[in-house]
């Protein structure tokens, strides 16, 4: 894991930012947080479509879980109301817990799949949950840089 993170740092130092792609929100089911799974043309040469769609679908599932109206969210709401919402000063809401999970998932995806391909996903919360920003890097460093991610993902797409 230390090796993979080291490569993420190297990516930024040795590569230059070429382009950014923005995945927009999908409002077809209402205002709940959901992103379009349309595969951007700029990424066609960089990453395989199923991998990408998998990431976005997984993110959508997490956001749906965070915003789910169910027994737990009603209970949390009623309990919080009974305490005049003072309980939010000490307790972490379910949404915040899921957001942390999403942050960890995105970091893991970046390390394992996207950084070896010269891509970087930005957590949507840093963009106001409006877009998923994907930065595309051009590798201008020497051979030892990004492609050096030894493990799993064959970083052949370049």
């Amino acid at each position: 894991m230390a090796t993979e993170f080291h490569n993420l740092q190297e990516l930024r130092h040795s590569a230059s930012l070429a382009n950014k792609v923005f995945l927009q929100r999908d409002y077809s089911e209402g205002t709940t947080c959901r992103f379009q799974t349309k595969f951007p043309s700029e990424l066609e040469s960089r990453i395989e479509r199923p991998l990408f769609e998998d990431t976005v679908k997984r993110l959508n599932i997490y956001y749906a879980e965070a915003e789910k109206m169910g027994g737990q969210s009603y209970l949390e709401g009623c309990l919080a109301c009974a305490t005049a919402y003072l309980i939010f000063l000490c307790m972490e809401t379910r949404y915040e817990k899921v957001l942390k999970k999403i942050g960890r998932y995105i970091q893991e995806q970046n390390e394992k799949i996207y950084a070896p391909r010269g891509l970087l996903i930005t957590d949507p919360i840093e963009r106001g949950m409006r877009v998923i920003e994907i930065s595309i890097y051009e590798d201008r460093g020497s051979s030892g840089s990004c492609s050096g991610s030894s493990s799993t993902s064959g970083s052949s797409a370049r």
Partner: protein
Amino acid sequence: MSAVMIARKVRKWEKLPGKNTFCCDGRVMMARQKGVFYLTVFLIVGTCSLFFAFECPYLATHLSPAIPVFAIVLFLFVMALLLRTSFSDPGVLPRALPEEATFIEMEIEAANGNVPAGQRPPPRIRNVQINGQIVKLKYCYTCKIFRPPRASHCSICDNCVDRFDHHCPWVGNCVGKRNYRYFYLFTLSLSLLTIYIFTFAIVHVVMRSVDSGFVKTLQDTPGTVLEVLVCFFTLWSVVGLTGFHSYLISLNQTTNEDIKGSWSGKNRLQNPYSHKNIVKNCCEVLCGPAYPSVLDRRGLTQDDLPVPASTATQSNPVLQTTKTTAPLIPNEHTPDDAKPSIADSAIAHAEKRSPSPKEKPPTPAKVPPLASPETDVEASIIIAKEKAL
């Protein structure tokens, strides 16, 4: 660029555009004009103080000690909700960073195709289908984004707010997705408190008058008159407001939509967000998940200041470029790695930036009494950036 840059870590709230004021190092977020909010606090605290001073001793001994206890609980509830409504982020949508704004501009230009010279380009609208209904998303010229459904730009706070209800001067803040339930519960509990104080003030006067006569009662407890007056006038407005918002909640509508008549039924437009079930609508609005703020007011960011120039503490548009480097780093609290990347991406932005076309904003919608009119004012962020760099 400049000779020597001093890197200083600042909290993000110091660099946020918009006309909000922040207190407690970014923990508290309010609108600029707070005068009416102070009046609200004064009225509530003042009236309750009079009640506790004049009515409660008599009622506690002659009727029940539960009366002042319940009054205290209700008062604390009202104050907690008022402060939570006033101090929290209503659901402000952060403005688009330069790359995102450029990306959207390119999409718009691609969609419009070639506009003949001299002709006005078509209005920037995106149609989306929500639950089978076509909803138009408008472009915000200030924030450089297509507003999500139900979002609106508040001209008083100069922010786009998600699920914008209205800007309430009484609480000194916008009412939006994140604080609507606190606002509603505040008006509801304030109605109860007002009715409670009004009722028991009258009961107290009646009971005392039986013992000592009406005039002597008023002389003994002059505060009662003031309380009754304040409560009488407050009742009509606050209870009315609570009733109005109860109606809106049951239909899952916002004040903004109601005033504009978005779902009034003309052109067969129906509210696509309503569950068509009063209980479900109420549950969604009042007991839904607690949405987090996307503003990250207390996060740290670099503030690169050139040495000779005096630093302006207003939101400096140039720093928008330095902010864009933050997402490259998973942990935003260690921006030391950002330094080489800042230079890289800043140069990349300077090369790639394309000037946005000067658009005359479309005519504003009719001005509603409570909600702010949408002012699609062209922001000069890009011009300021070009000047600064």
